[in-house]
């Protein structure tokens, strides 16, 4: 099982087409949509978690890109300032995907960007404010 949080930007030419459902039908993938918007100029933005077999996942992404959808992984956009982070673990209270977790017995606080859903809960829960959003914040509001 492979799962990734993605942002998809649709050009206005395909915003009316049923794209997401094809990911299920053609590629046996499942999805969880966190946000979907169509902007005034008809471009669309969707933030979703896409899961399935790794090969199917890659085929699905190729399908999307073939249609002209701009696909970006979201996990790469939340960053941790390693100088600021003092490894307490307060963030693990709010992280819903387990991207922030404690490695035992060392008690080191690990940030696994692959698992990050970019929900941003850690950003304000971090005592040291070490978690940074490094992309257009409007993606999630």
């Amino acid at each position, binding site marked *: 099982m492979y799962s990734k949080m993605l942002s998809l930007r649709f050009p206005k030419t395909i915003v009316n087409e049923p794209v997401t459902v094809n990911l299920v039908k053609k590629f046996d993938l499942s999805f969880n949509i966190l946000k979907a918007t169509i902007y005034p100029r008809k471009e669309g933005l969707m933030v979703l978690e896409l899961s399935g077999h790794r090969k199917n996942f890659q085929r699905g992404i190729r399908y999307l890109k073939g249609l002209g959808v701009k696909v970006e992984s979201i996990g790469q956009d939340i960053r941790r300032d390693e100088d*600021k982070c*003092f*490894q*307490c*673990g*307060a963030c*693990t*209270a*709010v992280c819903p995907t387990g991207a922030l977790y*404690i490695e*035992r*017995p*060392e*008690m*080191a*606080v690990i940030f696994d960007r692959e698992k990050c859903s970019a929900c941003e809960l850690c950003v*304000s*829960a971090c*005592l*040291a*404010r070490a978690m940074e959003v490094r992309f257009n914040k409007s993606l999630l509001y």
Partner: protein
Amino acid sequence: MAQKKFTRTINEINRKIKDGKVVVVTADEMVDIVKKKGPKKAAREVDVVTTGTFAPMCSSGAFLNFGHTKPAIKASRVWLNSVPAYAGVAAVDVYIGATEPAEDDPLNRVHPGQFKYGGGHVIHDLIAGKRINLVATSYGTDCYPNREIKKKVTLADLPYAVLLNPRNAYQNYNCAINLSKKTIYTYMGVLKPNAGNANYSTSGQLSPLFNDPYYLTMGLGTRIFLGGAKGYIIGPGTQHNPNAKRGKNGIPIEPAGTLMVKGDLKEMDPRWVAGVSMLGYGCSLAVGVGVPIPILNEEIALYTGISDDEIFTRIIDYGKDYPKGKASSLGLVSYAELKSGTIRFDGHDVSTVPLSSYVRALEIARILKRWIEKGKFLLAEAQEMLPTASSYITK
């Protein structure tokens, strides 16, 4: 023949430090040594045990003197990067408290507030060598006619800067859960509803006061690691309560002893003094403190050998009980359980969340160990011990 009771003095330890023959171990290493060899043998082999803790410690702040200006001012109100400092002392002396938010902070008007910048951040920025905007106003006097000054200062510009924390290194602290039905934002971090998580804040077996539960080796004058530099214990901290409830092993099971500490800000390292923003609660300062425990006898060796599974704290509901001032224990939990990641509460597994950095605490204990081994840090005899438990005195 009865074995002679083993004792050692701080002077003897210092002589060994100077001769390069001192044996220093960190508190977590001492746990294994005492378990394997027993306190008698451990006391004979180990001279000093180093401890450490790194966590938000709200009762912290700095005394600063910003030097006389031309014309002179008797500052009555002072702001550092918009954070008010207490100016009700001499003309150009101020105290900047860790939890003071910037004056224009929206606080909790939109709950939970962010508290992005406060006194703790000012102290961190000073230590990091950053320029700070200083504004002072006054009513003007014959000797100090100036009514207002505005200038940029760095730590190097300040004639005097001392970290003086009224309460650090709490000996124990509550394990916080939330039994209410909504998420709450506390000084113990974010607590999810219906006991969604259990937060705690101590370095357990590494924590300074857990290694000397009756304060037999520390008091006014004890030299310590503070904020990356040498500092001193200058007495019991506020709320120091030696008579808190203790387990059979002498370790308190509720908040007990505290330390008042001081150190020269100019010698400190920003890595060990960090501004903190607590969502919905306020600003604070994470402080690194490490106390060397001299192994003066077998009893102290025994205490330094106590491990996380022998140290307990109370679970307290911060949803309903604590805000009402009726904090009652919902059960005891050991630090070994808390560090494992989950505790059993009311028939459920609850995930645990530390606010205290064990990684940094261990780093402090190791740095202090290195300082002592290399002869850079001598132990200092306390001139007046911290008040201990009345039960210990009558023992």
